[in-house]
């Protein structure tokens, strides 16, 4: 897939130390299942996001493995403990070399 991926993030900008924060992510992607056919009967090849990883200051805190059963424009919600100020990095990767990265800053007091 070419072009810059459209990513939406919902991450709190600030948090108290030890607080559990909710993170919502959404990435624009067709998630073509590989089970559909064109009107001429030709199979449409699979093109999905297979992996999503969230790292907190370089340490992996959450990972998801996606299959064709996940809807288009995958939405994933999870939580993490706000341990220290820094950067949350979100990486999506998948078929046909798809890769998208987005980061969010968090200030922990």
């Amino acid at each position, binding site marked *: 897939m070419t072009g810059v991926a459209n990513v939406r993030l919902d991450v709190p900008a600030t948090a108290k130390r030890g607080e559990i924060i909710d993170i919502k992510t959404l990435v624009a992607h067709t998630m073509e*299942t590989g089970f559909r056919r064109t009107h001429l009967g030709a199979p449409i090849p699979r093109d999905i996001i297979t992996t999503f990883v969230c790292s907190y200051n370089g340490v992996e805190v*959450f990972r998801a493995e996606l*299959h064709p*059963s996940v*809807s288009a424009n995958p939405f994933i*919600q*999870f939580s993490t403990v706000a341990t220290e100020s820094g950067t949350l990095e979100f990486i999506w990767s998948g078929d046909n070399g798809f890769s998208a990265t987005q980061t969010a800053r968090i200030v922990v007091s």
Partner: protein
Amino acid sequence: MKVASGFAAAAVLPSVVGAQMTRTPLNNMPEVIRKLVGTKAINQGKVKLGLPPLVENGHLVPLNVSVESPMSEADHVKAIHVFTERNPLPEMVSFRLGPRAGRAQVATRVRLADTQNVVAIAELSDGSFWSDSAYLIVTLAACLEELPA
């Protein structure tokens, strides 16, 4: 295996609900679950799988899973797997988490090809497996639409 009772119910229910309709065939979900858990027992409880009971559009079904766990270093949820019975592939999505998640609660949106059972299995740090399942009625199916020639 306690989860077997869920599968038995699945075999009975569709014959009532979808008597006049062609059903999407069952996939190899029990086999794939067996591969994941090995010889261990699948316990009922702890896991809560949230899905709407009646789905109008199988393309976009909100799904959430929460597991009762202190999420400490010693006792936490390692992974949450979601399986489907009648989608072309039994694997739906797997989440890997650990004590840094704080709470074992995840949400996403999935596709459903037919009225069917969905099973969530949580893998805990002590090596035990816990599960919950939900039965959904889907009026507009995803994945398998046939376009006119």
